[in-house]
Protein backbone atom coordinates (compact mmCIF):
# COMPACT_ATOMS: atom_id res chain seq x y z
CA UNK A 1 0.00 0.00 0.00
CA UNK A 2 2.75 2.39 1.03
CA UNK A 3 4.68 1.41 -2.05
CA UNK A 4 1.72 2.38 -4.24
CA UNK A 5 1.44 5.83 -2.61
CA UNK A 6 5.18 6.31 -2.99
CA UNK A 7 4.96 5.40 -6.68
CA UNK A 8 2.05 7.79 -7.20
CA UNK A 9 3.99 10.63 -5.55
CA UNK A 10 7.03 9.81 -7.62
CA UNK A 11 4.89 9.90 -10.76
CA UNK A 12 3.45 13.26 -9.76
CA UNK A 13 6.91 14.71 -9.12
CA UNK A 14 8.09 13.32 -12.46
CA UNK A 15 5.08 14.81 -14.28
CA UNK A 16 5.62 18.17 -12.60
CA UNK A 17 9.27 18.11 -13.56
CA UNK A 18 8.44 17.23 -17.16
CA UNK A 19 5.84 19.98 -17.24
CA UNK A 20 8.33 22.47 -15.85
CA UNK A 21 10.93 21.31 -18.32
CA UNK A 22 8.58 21.88 -21.21
CA UNK A 23 7.71 25.33 -19.87
CA UNK A 24 11.38 26.18 -19.41
CA UNK A 25 12.20 24.92 -22.90
CA UNK A 26 9.46 27.08 -24.42
CA UNK A 27 10.72 30.04 -22.40
CA UNK A 28 14.29 29.44 -23.48
CA UNK A 29 13.30 29.42 -27.11
CA UNK A 30 11.36 32.63 -26.67
CA UNK A 31 14.16 34.30 -24.72
CA UNK A 32 16.64 33.33 -27.38
CA UNK A 33 14.44 34.61 -30.18
CA UNK A 34 14.67 38.30 -29.49
CA UNK A 35 12.41 40.22 -31.88
CA UNK A 36 14.57 41.71 -34.60
CA UNK A 37 14.02 45.29 -35.60
CA UNK A 38 15.08 45.26 -39.26
CA UNK A 39 16.62 48.68 -39.44
CA UNK A 40 16.47 51.58 -37.05
CA UNK A 41 16.98 54.05 -39.92
CA UNK A 42 13.30 54.28 -40.82
CA UNK A 43 12.29 54.75 -37.22
CA UNK A 44 15.03 57.32 -36.77
CA UNK A 45 13.93 59.26 -39.85
CA UNK A 46 10.27 59.17 -38.91
CA UNK A 47 10.98 60.25 -35.33
CA UNK A 48 13.24 63.10 -36.44
CA UNK A 49 10.63 64.20 -38.99
CA UNK A 50 7.85 64.27 -36.40
CA UNK A 51 9.99 66.04 -33.83
CA UNK A 52 11.05 68.60 -36.44
CA UNK A 53 7.38 69.25 -37.26
CA UNK A 54 6.58 69.92 -33.61
CA UNK A 55 9.74 71.98 -33.28
CA UNK A 56 8.78 74.04 -36.35
CA UNK A 57 5.34 74.89 -35.01
CA UNK A 58 6.92 75.98 -31.71
CA UNK A 59 9.43 78.08 -33.66
CA UNK A 60 6.62 79.80 -35.53
CA UNK A 61 5.02 80.79 -32.24
CA UNK A 62 8.26 82.13 -30.85
CA UNK A 63 8.82 84.06 -34.11
CA UNK A 64 5.41 85.70 -33.72
CA UNK A 65 6.22 86.59 -30.10
CA UNK A 66 9.59 88.00 -31.16
CA UNK A 67 7.93 90.04 -33.89
CA UNK A 68 5.37 91.50 -31.49
CA UNK A 69 7.49 92.01 -28.40
CA UNK A 70 11.02 91.94 -29.76
CA UNK A 71 11.44 95.65 -29.00
CA UNK A 72 11.25 94.96 -25.24
CA UNK A 73 14.62 93.91 -23.88
CA UNK A 74 13.80 93.56 -20.20
CA UNK A 75 12.66 90.04 -19.53
CA UNK A 76 10.01 90.64 -16.92
CA UNK A 77 8.53 93.56 -18.89
CA UNK A 78 8.27 91.37 -21.98
CA UNK A 79 6.65 88.57 -20.00
CA UNK A 80 4.16 90.92 -18.36
CA UNK A 81 3.32 92.48 -21.73
CA UNK A 82 2.69 89.04 -23.22
CA UNK A 83 0.51 88.14 -20.22
CA UNK A 84 -1.40 91.44 -20.47
CA UNK A 85 -2.00 90.97 -24.19
CA UNK A 86 -3.26 87.43 -23.63
CA UNK A 87 -5.60 88.70 -20.89
CA UNK A 88 -6.85 91.46 -23.21
CA UNK A 89 -7.51 89.00 -26.01
CA UNK A 90 -9.38 86.74 -23.59
CA UNK A 91 -11.47 89.65 -22.29
CA UNK A 92 -12.21 90.75 -25.86
CA UNK A 93 -13.33 87.24 -26.81
CA UNK A 94 -15.47 87.03 -23.66
CA UNK A 95 -17.11 90.40 -24.37
CA UNK A 96 -17.74 89.51 -27.98
CA UNK A 97 -19.41 86.30 -26.96
CA UNK A 98 -21.66 88.20 -24.52
CA UNK A 99 -22.55 90.80 -27.20
CA UNK A 100 -23.36 88.06 -29.67
CA UNK A 101 -25.57 86.36 -27.11
CA UNK A 102 -27.43 89.62 -26.44
CA UNK A 103 -27.90 90.28 -30.15
CA UNK A 104 -29.21 86.80 -30.61
CA UNK A 105 -31.62 87.29 -27.69
CA UNK A 106 -32.83 90.66 -29.03
CA UNK A 107 -33.25 89.37 -32.55
CA UNK A 108 -35.64 86.78 -31.17
CA UNK A 109 -37.65 89.54 -29.45
CA UNK A 110 -38.12 91.96 -32.38
CA UNK A 111 -41.24 91.99 -34.58
CA UNK A 112 -40.26 91.60 -38.15
CA UNK A 113 -42.14 93.88 -40.48
CA UNK A 114 -41.72 92.59 -43.92
CA UNK A 115 -42.22 95.16 -46.65
CA UNK A 116 -43.37 92.95 -49.43
CA UNK A 117 -43.71 89.30 -48.68
CA UNK A 118 -46.01 88.29 -45.91
CA UNK A 119 -47.23 84.78 -45.83
CA UNK A 120 -50.26 85.55 -43.65
CA UNK A 121 -53.52 85.66 -45.58
CA UNK A 122 -55.98 88.53 -45.05
CA UNK A 123 -58.72 86.18 -43.79
CA UNK A 124 -56.31 84.86 -41.25
CA UNK A 125 -55.60 88.36 -39.96
CA UNK A 126 -59.34 88.99 -39.61
CA UNK A 127 -59.72 85.72 -37.76
CA UNK A 128 -56.91 86.61 -35.38
CA UNK A 129 -58.32 90.06 -34.82
CA UNK A 130 -61.70 88.54 -34.02
CA UNK A 131 -60.12 86.23 -31.47
CA UNK A 132 -58.29 89.17 -29.98
CA UNK A 133 -61.55 91.16 -29.78
CA UNK A 134 -63.56 88.29 -28.30
CA UNK A 135 -61.00 87.49 -25.68
CA UNK A 136 -61.47 90.98 -24.25
CA UNK A 137 -58.12 91.96 -25.69
CA UNK A 138 -56.35 89.85 -23.18
CA UNK A 139 -54.95 87.24 -25.48
CA UNK A 140 -53.35 88.11 -28.70
CA UNK A 141 -53.87 84.65 -30.27
CA UNK A 142 -50.19 84.27 -31.04
CA UNK A 143 -48.35 86.90 -33.01
CA UNK A 144 -49.89 88.68 -35.95
CA UNK A 145 -47.46 89.56 -38.64
CA UNK A 146 -48.70 92.15 -41.13
CA UNK A 147 -46.95 94.20 -43.73
CA UNK A 148 -46.71 97.99 -43.75
CA UNK A 149 -49.00 98.06 -46.78
CA UNK A 150 -51.66 96.05 -45.01
CA UNK A 151 -51.36 98.29 -41.97
CA UNK A 152 -51.99 101.38 -44.16
CA UNK A 153 -54.99 99.70 -45.75
CA UNK A 154 -56.37 98.88 -42.34
CA UNK A 155 -55.98 102.46 -41.09
CA UNK A 156 -57.55 103.85 -44.25
CA UNK A 157 -60.52 101.52 -43.92
CA UNK A 158 -60.95 102.49 -40.24
CA UNK A 159 -60.93 106.21 -41.18
CA UNK A 160 -63.37 105.58 -44.00
CA UNK A 161 -65.62 103.65 -41.64
CA UNK A 162 -65.55 106.51 -39.11
CA UNK A 163 -66.50 109.06 -41.79
CA UNK A 164 -69.35 106.85 -42.99
CA UNK A 165 -70.52 106.37 -39.41
CA UNK A 166 -70.63 110.14 -38.82
CA UNK A 167 -72.49 110.68 -42.10
CA UNK A 168 -75.02 108.07 -41.11
CA UNK A 169 -75.42 109.64 -37.67
CA UNK A 170 -76.03 113.07 -39.18
CA UNK A 171 -78.49 111.62 -41.64
CA UNK A 172 -80.50 109.95 -38.89
CA UNK A 173 -80.41 113.07 -36.70
CA UNK A 174 -81.72 115.20 -39.55
CA UNK A 175 -84.60 112.86 -40.36
CA UNK A 176 -86.86 112.13 -37.29
CA UNK A 177 -89.02 109.68 -39.21
CA UNK A 178 -86.03 107.59 -40.11
CA UNK A 179 -84.92 107.67 -36.51
CA UNK A 180 -88.33 106.43 -35.34
CA UNK A 181 -88.37 103.71 -37.92
CA UNK A 182 -85.00 102.43 -36.89
CA UNK A 183 -85.91 102.46 -33.22
CA UNK A 184 -89.07 100.55 -33.98
CA UNK A 185 -87.22 97.96 -35.95
CA UNK A 186 -84.72 97.49 -33.19
CA UNK A 187 -87.46 96.97 -30.60
CA UNK A 188 -89.09 94.47 -32.88
CA UNK A 189 -85.94 92.45 -33.10
CA UNK A 190 -85.63 92.43 -29.28
CA UNK A 191 -82.43 94.19 -29.45
CA UNK A 192 -81.17 96.64 -26.89
CA UNK A 193 -81.87 100.18 -27.69
CA UNK A 194 -79.07 101.95 -29.29
CA UNK A 195 -78.68 105.48 -28.32
CA UNK A 196 -78.12 107.15 -31.58
Amino acid at each position, binding site marked *: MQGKIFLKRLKNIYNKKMENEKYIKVLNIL*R*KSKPVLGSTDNIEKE*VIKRIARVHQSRLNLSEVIDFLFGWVYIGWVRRSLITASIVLVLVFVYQQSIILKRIDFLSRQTVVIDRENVSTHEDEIEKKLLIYKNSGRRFSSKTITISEKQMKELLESVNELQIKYKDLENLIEEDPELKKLIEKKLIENNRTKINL
Partner: protein
Amino acid sequence: MIDIKLIEECKGGNFNNFRKLVGLTSPFAFSVAFRMLGDEDQAKDVVQETMITIWQKLKKIKSAEVYKTWIYRIVVNKCYDQLRKRKRNPEFVADEQTWALISNRISEGPSAALENKETSRIISILTERLSPKQKAVFILSDLEEMSSDEISEITGISKSAVKANLHYARKNISEKVEKYL
Protein backbone atom coordinates in the same frame (compact mmCIF):
# COMPACT_ATOMS: atom_id res chain seq x y z
CA MET B 1 24.39 49.64 -22.69
CA ILE B 2 23.39 53.28 -23.05
CA ASP B 3 26.01 55.83 -22.10
CA ILE B 4 24.91 58.16 -19.32
CA LYS B 5 26.91 60.98 -20.89
CA LEU B 6 24.92 60.62 -24.10
CA ILE B 7 21.65 60.98 -22.18
CA GLU B 8 22.96 64.04 -20.36
CA GLU B 9 23.92 65.63 -23.69
CA CYS B 10 20.49 64.84 -25.11
CA LYS B 11 18.93 66.50 -22.08
CA GLY B 12 20.79 69.63 -23.14
CA GLY B 13 18.92 69.53 -26.46
CA ASN B 14 21.60 68.01 -28.69
CA PHE B 15 19.68 66.73 -31.71
CA ASN B 16 22.53 64.70 -33.24
CA ASN B 17 23.10 62.81 -30.03
CA PHE B 18 19.39 62.16 -29.82
CA ARG B 19 19.63 60.36 -33.18
CA LYS B 20 22.24 58.10 -31.62
CA LEU B 21 20.00 57.56 -28.62
CA VAL B 22 17.11 56.59 -30.90
CA GLY B 23 19.38 54.05 -32.61
CA LEU B 24 20.43 52.57 -29.27
CA THR B 25 17.03 52.63 -27.57
CA SER B 26 14.80 51.43 -30.40
CA PRO B 27 15.85 47.72 -30.40
CA PHE B 28 14.99 46.99 -26.78
CA ALA B 29 11.88 49.18 -26.87
CA PHE B 30 10.83 47.23 -29.97
CA SER B 31 11.52 43.93 -28.23
CA VAL B 32 9.07 44.67 -25.42
CA ALA B 33 6.48 46.27 -27.69
CA PHE B 34 6.59 43.40 -30.16
CA ARG B 35 6.32 40.76 -27.45
CA MET B 36 3.42 42.63 -25.87
CA LEU B 37 1.50 43.35 -29.07
CA GLY B 38 2.55 40.53 -31.40
CA ASP B 39 2.37 42.89 -34.36
CA GLU B 40 5.45 44.34 -36.03
CA ASP B 41 3.84 47.50 -37.44
CA GLN B 42 2.08 48.36 -34.21
CA ALA B 43 5.28 47.73 -32.27
CA LYS B 44 7.17 50.10 -34.59
CA ASP B 45 4.49 52.75 -34.07
CA VAL B 46 4.83 52.35 -30.32
CA VAL B 47 8.61 52.73 -30.61
CA GLN B 48 8.21 55.93 -32.65
CA GLU B 49 5.73 57.41 -30.19
CA THR B 50 8.01 56.41 -27.32
CA MET B 51 10.95 58.20 -28.90
CA ILE B 52 8.91 61.37 -29.40
CA THR B 53 7.77 61.24 -25.77
CA ILE B 54 11.40 60.78 -24.71
CA TRP B 55 12.46 63.86 -26.66
CA GLN B 56 9.66 65.91 -25.16
CA LYS B 57 10.20 64.81 -21.57
CA LEU B 58 13.88 63.97 -21.40
CA LYS B 59 14.62 67.20 -19.55
CA LYS B 60 12.35 66.10 -16.71
CA ILE B 61 14.50 63.04 -15.90
CA LYS B 62 16.38 63.66 -12.68
CA SER B 63 19.14 61.12 -13.22
CA ALA B 64 20.29 59.27 -16.32
CA GLU B 65 20.48 55.97 -14.37
CA VAL B 66 16.71 55.59 -14.41
CA TYR B 67 16.55 56.09 -18.17
CA LYS B 68 16.05 52.43 -19.10
CA THR B 69 13.29 51.86 -16.53
CA TRP B 70 11.65 55.07 -17.66
CA ILE B 71 11.66 53.96 -21.30
CA TYR B 72 10.21 50.57 -20.42
CA ARG B 73 7.45 52.35 -18.51
CA ILE B 74 6.57 54.50 -21.52
CA VAL B 75 6.61 51.50 -23.85
CA VAL B 76 4.46 49.37 -21.53
CA ASN B 77 1.93 52.18 -21.08
CA LYS B 78 1.70 52.72 -24.82
CA CYS B 79 1.23 48.98 -25.31
CA TYR B 80 -1.58 49.01 -22.73
CA ASP B 81 -3.28 51.72 -24.80
CA GLN B 82 -2.96 49.63 -27.95
CA LEU B 83 -4.23 46.49 -26.23
CA ARG B 84 -7.21 48.38 -24.82
CA LYS B 85 -8.15 49.48 -28.31
CA ARG B 86 -8.26 45.92 -29.55
CA LYS B 87 -11.41 43.90 -29.26
CA ARG B 88 -11.21 40.98 -26.92
CA ASN B 89 -11.27 37.59 -28.51
CA PRO B 90 -14.23 35.86 -26.86
CA GLU B 91 -13.11 32.30 -27.32
CA PHE B 92 -9.69 30.81 -27.21
CA VAL B 93 -9.03 28.64 -30.24
CA ALA B 94 -6.07 26.31 -29.97
CA ASP B 95 -4.04 26.78 -33.12
CA GLU B 96 -2.78 23.31 -34.02
CA GLN B 97 -0.13 24.67 -36.36
CA THR B 98 1.38 26.90 -33.69
CA TRP B 99 1.53 24.09 -31.17
CA ALA B 100 3.15 21.85 -33.78
CA LEU B 101 5.67 24.62 -34.42
CA ILE B 102 6.49 24.94 -30.71
CA SER B 103 6.83 21.16 -30.47
CA ASN B 104 9.21 21.11 -33.44
CA ARG B 105 11.33 23.92 -32.02
CA ILE B 106 11.59 22.16 -28.66
CA SER B 107 12.75 18.97 -30.34
CA GLU B 108 15.31 20.95 -32.35
CA GLY B 109 17.05 21.80 -29.08
CA PRO B 110 18.49 25.00 -27.62
CA SER B 111 19.98 26.17 -30.93
CA ALA B 112 16.52 26.85 -32.38
CA ALA B 113 15.78 30.54 -32.94
CA LEU B 114 12.46 31.87 -34.15
CA GLU B 115 11.56 34.48 -36.68
CA ASN B 116 9.50 37.48 -35.64
CA LYS B 117 6.29 36.01 -37.02
CA GLU B 118 6.77 32.71 -35.23
CA THR B 119 7.62 34.48 -31.97
CA SER B 120 4.50 36.61 -32.20
CA ARG B 121 2.30 33.56 -32.90
CA ILE B 122 3.71 31.64 -29.96
CA ILE B 123 3.50 34.51 -27.50
CA SER B 124 -0.02 35.32 -28.66
CA ILE B 125 -1.19 31.75 -28.18
CA LEU B 126 0.47 31.44 -24.78
CA THR B 127 -0.73 34.75 -23.37
CA GLU B 128 -4.13 34.99 -25.01
CA ARG B 129 -6.07 34.47 -21.79
CA LEU B 130 -3.94 36.87 -19.77
CA SER B 131 -4.85 40.44 -18.93
CA PRO B 132 -2.55 43.20 -20.28
CA LYS B 133 -1.02 43.56 -16.82
CA GLN B 134 -0.33 39.84 -16.46
CA LYS B 135 1.05 39.78 -19.97
CA ALA B 136 3.37 42.69 -19.22
CA VAL B 137 4.60 41.11 -15.99
CA PHE B 138 5.24 37.77 -17.69
CA ILE B 139 7.12 39.35 -20.61
CA LEU B 140 9.22 41.61 -18.43
CA SER B 141 10.03 38.90 -15.91
CA ASP B 142 10.40 35.69 -17.91
CA LEU B 143 11.40 37.01 -21.32
CA GLU B 144 13.19 40.29 -20.61
CA GLU B 145 14.59 38.78 -17.39
CA MET B 146 13.96 41.72 -15.08
CA SER B 147 13.71 41.68 -11.30
CA SER B 148 10.41 42.16 -9.51
CA ASP B 149 11.66 45.53 -8.22
CA GLU B 150 12.22 46.78 -11.76
CA ILE B 151 8.88 45.40 -12.93
CA SER B 152 7.13 47.04 -10.01
CA GLU B 153 8.69 50.36 -10.98
CA ILE B 154 7.85 49.97 -14.67
CA THR B 155 4.27 48.81 -14.29
CA GLY B 156 3.49 50.92 -11.25
CA ILE B 157 2.10 48.00 -9.25
CA SER B 158 3.35 46.70 -5.91
CA LYS B 159 5.95 43.95 -5.65
CA SER B 160 3.45 41.51 -4.17
CA ALA B 161 1.02 42.27 -7.00
CA VAL B 162 3.82 41.62 -9.49
CA LYS B 163 4.48 38.23 -7.89
CA ALA B 164 0.78 37.35 -7.83
CA ASN B 165 0.32 38.32 -11.47
CA LEU B 166 3.44 36.43 -12.45
CA HIS B 167 2.29 33.33 -10.59
CA TYR B 168 -1.07 33.41 -12.34
CA ALA B 169 0.54 33.97 -15.75
CA ARG B 170 3.05 31.16 -15.29
CA LYS B 171 0.35 28.77 -14.10
CA ASN B 172 -1.87 29.61 -17.03
CA ILE B 173 0.91 29.18 -19.56
CA SER B 174 2.21 25.93 -17.95
CA GLU B 175 -1.28 24.46 -18.14
CA LYS B 176 -1.46 25.27 -21.80
CA VAL B 177 2.00 23.89 -22.46
CA GLU B 178 1.10 20.69 -20.64
CA LYS B 179 -2.20 20.36 -22.44
CA TYR B 180 -1.05 20.97 -25.98
CA LEU B 181 2.55 19.79 -26.06
